[in-house]
């Protein structure tokens, strides 16, 4: 972030108010950092405000909010240019849909509007940072920080500088993560980095086992939890991620690595088609009674 932004206490601008955008906004707010959250339409932002209010309570409930810190102020906007004028952003986090063209367009607009040296942070799960860098005015300012869901509860963050990212920008982003009490682990740029490259094909395999009738959803998760110590089981994880996003990320991986294990299996594709996107839609591999706000 620029020194001026820090002094003025400029906001963290988060573009994309879905599962991750709301989680990342919550993380910043509980640490006293103001947030400007941007999405395409008002209805999405209204839902995001409800989700963030609930997340803030969850953070308090689970002791994830630092003591004696007044939460930052939240502003929402449907206009990216409006969000980027006014006080200079400490950094901009891009958390829009996992589609290379959408991300490239958003990052290009952001990079044209912010001062040089403002970290442009993509939260992509799987798109190589250097591929996205082709769209921005200054590739040196772009890097990946791969938060996990829920971003305000999971303390480790995968950080991905591209080959053209400036060391200063990595340092600024790492400093910001430190202020948010996250532990960064820096890895080299590549499709899916470490976490998605390992997790996504595994979840795809888990869904394929269900599809082939080898085991039920509950039993796949129970075996991974009980025998192998996975915290929630892969299919409950799929529901937490959002199955639409999971399929998008698997497509990105499959296209770029040629790995057949990353070709989204029929059961995942069917769930997306049927609108069973996981917790956020109220139903995925499991039923959640109601959609998360």
């Amino acid at each position: 972030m620029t020194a001026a932004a820090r002094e003025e206490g400029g906001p963290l601008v988060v573009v994309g108010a879905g599962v991750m955008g709301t989680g990342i906004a919550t993380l910043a707010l509980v640490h006293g950092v103001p947030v400007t959250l941007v999405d395409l339409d008002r209805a999405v932002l209204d839902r995001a405000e409800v989700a963030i209010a609930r997340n803030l309570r969850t953070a308090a409930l689970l002791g994830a909010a630092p003591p004696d810190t007044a939460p930052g102020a939240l502003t929402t906007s449907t206009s990216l240019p409006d969000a980027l004028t006014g006080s200079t952003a400490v950094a901009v986090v891009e958390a829009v849909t996992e589609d290379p063209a959408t991300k490239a367009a958003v990052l290009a607009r952001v990079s044209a509007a912010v001062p040089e040296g403002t970290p442009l942070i993509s939260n992509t799960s799987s798109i190589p940072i250097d591929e996205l860098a082709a769209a921005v005015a200054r590739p040196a300012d772009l890097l990946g920080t791969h938060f996990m869901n829920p971003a305000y509860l999971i303390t480790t963050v995968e950080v991905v500088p591209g080959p053209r990212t400036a060391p200063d920008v990595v340092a600024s982003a790492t400093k910001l993560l430190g202020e948010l009490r996250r532990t960064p682990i820096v890895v080299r740029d590549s499709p899916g980095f470490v976490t998605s490259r390992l997790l996504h094909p595994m979840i795809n395999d888990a869904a394929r086992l269900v599809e082939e009738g080898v085991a039920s959803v509950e039993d796949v998760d129970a075996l991974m939890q009980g025998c192998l110590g996975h915290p929630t089981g892969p299919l409950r994880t799929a529901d937490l991620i959002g199955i639409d996003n999971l399929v998008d990320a698997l497509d990105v991986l499959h296209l770029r690595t040629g790995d057949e294990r990353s070709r989204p299996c029929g059961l995942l594709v069917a769930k997306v088609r049927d609108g069973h996107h996981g917790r956020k839609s109220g139903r995925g591999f499991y039923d959640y009674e109601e959609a998360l706000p």
Partner: protein
Amino acid sequence: MTVSVTPDTIERELVEFLETRTKAGWTATRDLFGEGGLSSLFAMELVVHLEQRYGIAISGADLKLANFRTVRAMVELVVRLRDGG
């Protein structure tokens, strides 16, 4: 009209609620998040459920996991917040 809800009723209702939501058996003293293995995110669903079902508001220092760790702890919280008004 307020129907008086006794601690026993609350306890029975909560065990039923957990059994429906988790498809597992529960007792009043079983640790939900330790041996019970429920995700800590489920705790927030419990907060919302208790607020809606018993007309209470849980905030400030009451918003801590210890209050939701067992059915018994939740009953105590509900009774206290209903009495305290």
